[in-house]
């Protein structure tokens, strides 16, 4: 499963990076690689069944437990 994920990400890199290097878009390359590594870590955590807290839990916590503004 991890191997499959890595091959998918390798495919994405092969699809995007050559064009960026040819056009000398270094800033785009940095942003692309940092976002892609973030995506890789998040999806690896999904595959390894690590529980990532949902962003909606953050909203619930802020509105319900801190501000007490929720409807129910």
């Amino acid at each position: 499963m991890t191997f499959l994920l890595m091959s998918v990400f390798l495919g994405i890199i092969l699809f995007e990076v050559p064009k960026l290097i040819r056009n000398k878009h270094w800033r785009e390359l940095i942003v692309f690689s940092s976002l892609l590594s973030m995506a890789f870590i998040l999806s690896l955590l999904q595959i390894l069944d690590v529980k990532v807290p949902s962003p909606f839990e953050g909203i619930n916590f802020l509105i319900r437990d801190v501000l007490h503004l929720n409807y129910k």
Partner: protein
Amino acid sequence: MKLEKGEISSSQLMFLVGGFIQGSLLTLAFAKDATKHDLWLALIAALMMSLPLALVYITLALKFPGQNLFQINDAVFGPYLGKLVSFQYIMLFLMIVSSNLWFAGDFFLTFFFPETPIIVIMIMFAFICAWGVRAGIEVIARMSIILVLFTILIALTTFILLLNEMKFSNFLPIFDIPIHDFIQGTNIMMAIPFNEVIIFMMVIPYANKMKQVKTSVLYGLMIGGITSLIVVIRNTAVLGPLADIVVSPSMEAVRLIDLGEIIERLEALVGIGLILSMFLKVSVFYYATVLGMAQLLKLRSYVPLVIPVGIIGITLALTNESSIQFTYTAMNTYPIFSLSFYIVLPLISLLIVKIRKLPK
């Protein structure tokens, strides 16, 4: 340096707004739990209250011609605070993308492919959206006309075919619910489809005729609102009290169509219509997220960011455990949370623009 080279005409903008509102037909279910059979009243109230807010967004966009939401934030709040506000908007948009991917996956899982893992549906859906976003806003806007007309056609056809099943006494008694629930329903309605038109501050700069922007956006809102109203009235009139219980009232209502045992099981059409208009909505949000990121980081092109952002959106959608938790958030906390983005910040921006007499 311009990130987007496409241009859209005013009729395309109108249909894009209309299709964008129609993309929330699936999520009308959140408000129905609060308002019961008075959902149509909440819908009308939300539509009426969102028109002045849409005017606020359009006024802001027209004060800074050719600049989108994030550039306006920079101009209004200054470079540093503006970046922070823009960052929050990007996070909100990314979250909306991921939640809509979840809605699409969950919907198809419930009604069409019960055995398929949700991630497969999400990946296919996100792939199509990413393709559209890479092609640019012009392509998405050109598609919108067909999709909107198709959705309207489905809504009208099913309405007419179900006329003999309808009991208009299902709407009585009007205003049977406590006012607290009605306010909640209106707030949900405003937060989930109607106020999201703030996203069009990212699209309006690429319209070719600035003078017609106001009428196009308002007409688009009316198109979307009236389609939603037709759907809501159909569901409540056909199903009655059952509409408050079932997962997707549209599907259950259309399932009842039976013309001489020949025309039956038209709910697949409803599914197609929902997924098509949802594609439009997710694409616009996806586009705004990616464009905003590129703007914030001063990139020359937004295209390389499309795939990573899509994968992040899918993984965020997968962190949700169940649709029950999701419904709780969408009904009780998210409407309040979104008020600051959809009402407070734009009004503060407009106030600052008036006081500082921007743009200089």
